[in-house]
């Protein structure tokens, strides 16, 4: 366990191949985000009614809820249709909105044509270490957000093992 504490946080990587052109896949992922995003995945206070990714650099990523509220979860950092979208994942370790962009992790989604009408979508969720108040504090343990940082380290190592095993 001690060896793991010094480990650099690995990104989570997932890929899926879909029967669609990069343009179609990109549009469904972003503009039609609401049509596929699992309803269980949000940080609002009441059930989610709609999910939105605003299609431009600086665009908001948020969900709308039954009580009329909105819950932001990200900001578009790079918008390059139909090739790439990069989103700051503004959810802190305690599952609250992260107001400080510097402490947001990042989700990059790339769309690569494999053959005519087939696209590979590669998702990388990275920079988890930003979610804590810094690697130094993480190592000293007791200070600030260290606890969660350590958990993320353990988690990232495990995810990496699993994805390696599950790689098809």
């Amino acid at each position, binding site marked *: 366990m001690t060896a793991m504490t010094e480990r650099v946080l690995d990104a989570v990587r997932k890929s*899926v191949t879909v029967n669609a052109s990069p343009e179609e896949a990109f549009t*469904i992922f972003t503009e*039609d985000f609401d049509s*596929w995003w699992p309803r269980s995945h949000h940080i609002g206070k009441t059930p989610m009614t709609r999910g939105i990714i605003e299609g431009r650099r600086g665009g908001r990523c948020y969900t709308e809820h039954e009580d009329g509220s909105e819950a932001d979860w990200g900001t578009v950092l790079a918008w390059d249709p139909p090739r790439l979208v990069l989103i700051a994942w503004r959810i802190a370790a*305690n*599952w609250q909105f992260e107001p400080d962009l510097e402490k947001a992790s990042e989700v990059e989604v790339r769309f690569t044509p494999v053959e005519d009408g087939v696209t590979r979508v590669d998702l990388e969720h990275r920079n988890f270490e930003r979610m804590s108040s810094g690697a130094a504090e993480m190592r000293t*343990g007791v200070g600030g957000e260290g606890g969660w940082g350590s958990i993320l380290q353990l988690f990232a190592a*495990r995810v990496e093992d699993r*994805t390696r095993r599950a790689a098809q």
Partner: protein
Amino acid sequence: MSTYRERQLDALGDPTRRAILARLRRGPAPVGKLARDFPVSRPAISQHLRVLKEANLVTDRADGTKRVYELNPEAFASLREYFDEFWGVALIAFKKRVEHRNREER
């Protein structure tokens, strides 16, 4: 399972509890020692430990007259699985949506 996870995430929502977990990562500790290490009262520490124990994040055992707490490694495996599943589930839903749309040709 999801109840456990929710409870774990709630338990992790408190900075003192996260700090206690970080401390326990360095090794098991009795309540008294933890109370001395943190600027909160012993009853408060006990309360935090109870929440962590209910969330299955820590376990306790008797050591003479002391109660010693340690991290429960099993719990962290389940949290990691939660995050791993997160993108897995989302991308499968995305794929289904793309292919459903193709079939319907809306």
